[in-house]
């Protein structure tokens, strides 16, 4: 088992910084819930135009890190920069975020939610949203309250991927979706984002997304344990990322 040491992680980050191609930088980010340390001195740099898998067990700190990047919770220490800017209105304009929960008002119709997104996000493409909905057999006239959990997740994904954002952050994008639809969703994600944009995706379904990942970030107990190229990891270990994950996080 090859693990990237913090020294190597910083070297990696340094190289990325040298390329002047950074989209996301987390510097010494710490977060506590009461006495429990949830994020422990996280240092992470992600470059533009990559698909990155944020992988870890339940409770490892994936969602907390994602929430911190989106400004949904305050960090206790450190700094987060997106495209060189601190979290604020400008960073929210370039991040398209899919949380792991339903964040839409279920009493609204899908078309009203599309109008809502179009009202607030300049980069929202309504035509694309309607096309994706049609592909997934979702009627824009329907209220979310009449839909199943899986269907609501699809609507959320459609909304998020209908933006021309620089950074897509997807927290468990296929968690509640049936296996038959996963490939379509993955294709939607891949075809939906513009070149030069970055996707940071957290998921447990590693085997489903492994083929599309450029880089992987392993997080365990609030610390980053791996941060490297997916191809290099496969080559150096001779195993799939799913297998490496199972070994690293064996109970």
């Amino acid at each position, binding site marked *: 088992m090859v693990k990237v040491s913090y020294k190597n992680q910083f070297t990696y980050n340094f190289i990325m910084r040298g390329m002047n191609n950074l989209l996301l930088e987390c510097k010494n980010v710490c977060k506590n*819930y*009461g006495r429990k340390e949830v994020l422990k001195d996280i240092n992470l740099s992600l470059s533009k135009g990559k698909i990155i898998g944020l992988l870890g067990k339940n409770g490892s700190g994936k969602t907390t890190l994602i*929430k911190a990047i*989106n*400004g*949904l*919770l*305050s960090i206790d220490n450190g700094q987060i920069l997106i495209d060189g800017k601190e979290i604020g*209105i*400008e960073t*929210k*304009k370039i*991040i398209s*975020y899919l*949380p792991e*929960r*339903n*964040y*839409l*008002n279920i*009493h609204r119709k899908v078309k009203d939610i599309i109008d*809502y997104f179009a*009202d*607030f*996000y300049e980069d929202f493409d309504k035509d694309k949203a309607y096309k994706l909905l049609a592909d997934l057999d979702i009627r824009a006239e329907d209220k979310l309250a009449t839909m199943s959990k899986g269907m609501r997740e699809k609507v959320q994904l459609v909304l998020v991927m209908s933006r021309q954002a620089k950074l897509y952050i997807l927290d468990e994008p296929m968690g509640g979706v049936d296996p038959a639809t996963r490939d379509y969703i993955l294709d939607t994600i891949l075809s939906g984002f513009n070149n030069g944009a970055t996707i940071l995706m957290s998921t447990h379904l590693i085997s489903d997304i492994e083929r599309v990942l450029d880089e992987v970030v392993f997080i365990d107990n609030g610390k980053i344990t791996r941060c490297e190229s997916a191809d290099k990891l496969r080559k150096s270990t001779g195993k799939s990322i799913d297998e490496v994950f199972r070994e690293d996080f064996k109970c």
Partner: protein
Amino acid sequence: MLGKVLKYDIKAIGRYLIPLYAVLLGLGIMIRILDFFEKVSVINIILGFMIAAFILLITFSFVLNGIFVIKLYLENLFKDEAYLTHTLPVKKNTLLISKVLTAMITLFLTFVVMMISLIIAFYYQGLMKDVIHILSQSFGGMEIYKVILYMAGYGLISYLTTILMVFAAIAIGYSKSSNKLGYSVIWAIIFYFGIEFLYLGLLGIVMSTNSSFITSLETNIFMMSDLLNFFTIFMIFTVLLGLGFYFISYKFINKRLNLE
């Protein structure tokens, strides 16, 4: 952006308020219709129940309005919907101001609907004259319109300050990692008793520095100028408290956000 946020806030709260308005107006119309058949004993009993329900609903309309505004604030800024609200490219101040404006607009609408439903239910020729006569008797010798204006202004300010107090308590409570609702309730209680204590202190200061007001109270003859001065001091104080609560809410939403 404020216009857009406000539009969606009003739409969201409309889901609760429109049924309330429909019930108020419906009861008003029913009371007016049944009133024509009041000589039929069964209908008279039903009418009595309807009037009781109507008065009860009228009394609690503003309370319900406030509860709906607080529910909107809680769900929109601290529950699941907050994951969307706080990732919109909108300033936190704009989000908060929109909630305050929503409270003001819906309060006005509730008042208008309440008055319309009251008029539908109980209007008769000369009603306004009688109302003014009763009010004039209650505030003997005073400029009645001025007093009503002051009372309405003070009512609005107190209403908004109370809502902002709950906003601040929720903002503090939901910045905690656990027992968020519990902490919110505790902070609301602390704020409530704190305000009561401050009002008592202010009353003491006003009384001790304004002897003519005490004399007026003792002789039971209110002087118009004394009463209005009294209102003005408390209004300014209440506005300051409201601003303080707004500032607390803003600080916690902006710097201490901690969504579940």
